[in-house]
């Protein structure tokens, strides 16, 4: 187990170096969301002049969407790195070595989640300079980070099978646009009430709206509502399905040899959190 963790962290460390040495990655994952934040606040927000909505309220409203956008754009690089490792022969080198084979993909997951969380924190710090203020207490901040972490894990696992399946660099990262589209057709940047009926119905029931609402509520200092638990369920469900999908693709395309069905570190952690949440709800029921 210790060697397995060491291998995972060694492989993750390699990819963190990739991220930190890639100007393109840093610009897209850190600088672009900051630019979007500033654009929404000082260009779009300034022009819209929403009646009865103060500058701080507007910043507080759009920040969860910007944070999720940061995570969504970053996941494109995860798919890209998976694709590059697959096509450059690095996966073959690692898998021909006496290491746990699941450490190869889990290294990708750990590095991706760490980098996504790092970029999210940078964007969050910049948002404080632009006027964002939260009424959340420590517990609510922690739960906010659970949601952001859960989303980072979800988009990371979602990018794994797509990176493994992709036949070109372009297709490897294209799925992040779909995530961004889902973000725009949600309550991330505008209220769903003003949307046409068909779009509104979709926006109200798609997972992005649930996750944005849950994050917004926590940052506003509200106790976790049904949205929080629904968001966790979406995240665990999508992560789990993506994990199984990755394994299936790995086997179908013969990237992975028969190995005992050990789950990765992060899916195991998510299952643990889910169990913990279930126990808490049972306790609350009593």
């Amino acid at each position, binding site marked *: 187990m210790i*060697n397995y963790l*060491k*291998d995972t962290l*060694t*492989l993750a460390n*390699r990819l963190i*170096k*990739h991220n930190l*040495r*890639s100007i393109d990655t840093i610009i897209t994952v850190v600088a672009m969301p900051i630019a979007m934040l500033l654009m929404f606040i000082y260009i779009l927000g300034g022009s819209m002049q929403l009646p009865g909505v103060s500058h701080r309220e507007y910043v507080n409203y759009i920040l969860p969407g910007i944070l999720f956008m940061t995570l969504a754009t970053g996941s494109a690089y995860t798919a890209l790195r998976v694709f590059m490792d697959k096509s*450059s*022969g*690095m996966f*073959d*080198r*690692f*898998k*021909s*070595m*006496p*290491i746990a084979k699941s450490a190869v993909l889990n290294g990708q997951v750990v590095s991706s989640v760490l980098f996504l969380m790092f970029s999210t924190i940078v964007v969050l710090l910049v948002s404080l300079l632009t006027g964002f203020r939260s009424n959340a207490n420590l517990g609510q901040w922690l739960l906010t980070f659970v949601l952001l972490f859960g989303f980072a894990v979800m988009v990371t696992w979602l990018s794994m099978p797509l990176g493994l399946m992709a036949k070109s660099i372009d297709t490897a990262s294209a799925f992040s646009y779909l995530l961004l589209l889902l973000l725009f057709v949600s309550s991330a940047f505008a209220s769903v009430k003003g949307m046409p009926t068909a779009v509104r119905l979709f926006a109200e029931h798609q997972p992005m709206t649930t996750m944005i609402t849950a994050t917004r509520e926590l940052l506003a200092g509200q106790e976790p509502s049904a949205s929080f638990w629904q968001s966790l369920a979406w995240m665990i469900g999508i992560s789990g399905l993506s994990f199984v999908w990755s394994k299936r693709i790995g086997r179908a395309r*013969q990237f992975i*040899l*028969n190995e005992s069905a050990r789950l990765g570190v992060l899916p195991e952690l998510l299952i643990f959190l889910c169990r913990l949440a279930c126990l808490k709800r049972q306790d609350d029921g009593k």
Partner: protein
Amino acid sequence: MTTIIKIDQIKKRFGKQQVLNHVSLSVEQGTIYSLLGANGAGKSTLLKIMTGLLPADGGDVEIEHHHLPKDLLTIQRRFSYSGQQSSIDDVLTGMENLTLVAKLRHLPQSKVVAQDLLARFSLTDAANKAAGSYSGGMARRLDLAMSLVGDPEIIFLDEPTTGLDPASRNDLWTMIRELKAKGKTIFLTTQYIEEADQLADRIGFLRDGEIIATGTPAEMKQLAGAEKLKLIFKNDADSLVAQKILETAQVTVLDPVTLVVTLSAGNHQSLAILKQLADAEVPIDNFGLVSPTLDDVFMKLTKGVTQG
């Protein structure tokens, strides 16, 4: 000699295509085995099966008395694999690439191991440069150095010199010979006959997923047939007279003034032929014995035609 690798009746199919069909071979410890074949013959697939990167549909891979896939990790501790492309991380430096592999092999003092290998492969000056800036030859040297981290007993190389210039190719051949001198067993695939001839103790010809011939380079050359006598005449007329005189021999006309006679009765037949032509006063401009090459074997085995 001890057999260190034994492949028995390996089968592999991708969709409707049977890529490997009952392939069997064995490799002796401390030798170089070269698997020779054209593109698409199944060389890389067999190598990936031998290294546990691909599962076989049938058959057995035995390495040092361990079997795949049951003893995968035990076997993988004993060998290293270098793929067809240079499997190096372009973003990391040469030093970082080597320490990465050393850490994954759980070696103590990974930096010392990396420094030793950098020096051995003349890469010390480029140790802190991104591997993406290396030339093709340097990248292949780094790739081979990464394969030697942990001092594995068996080294699998998939087309190690493909795409290299002649100087880099020679450098790599020297390094491979040095590894053999240290007692390592090397299994390499190649489509270059010269490479197999230069390096291999034993060669296996793979065609359409089947081993069609195996043996030492000398044994392989014998497969191409007898030695030949090459005769060059001053003009077409002399060549035509010689063809008439030698009508009972196996003669191939290379060009109007050049004939090649297969010495099916042995090398001494050449003296009789030269005497026949001298007695008939047919002047010969030049002549010489031509030994069969692996090219001849390759042509004979892959096309069923022996070159003249």
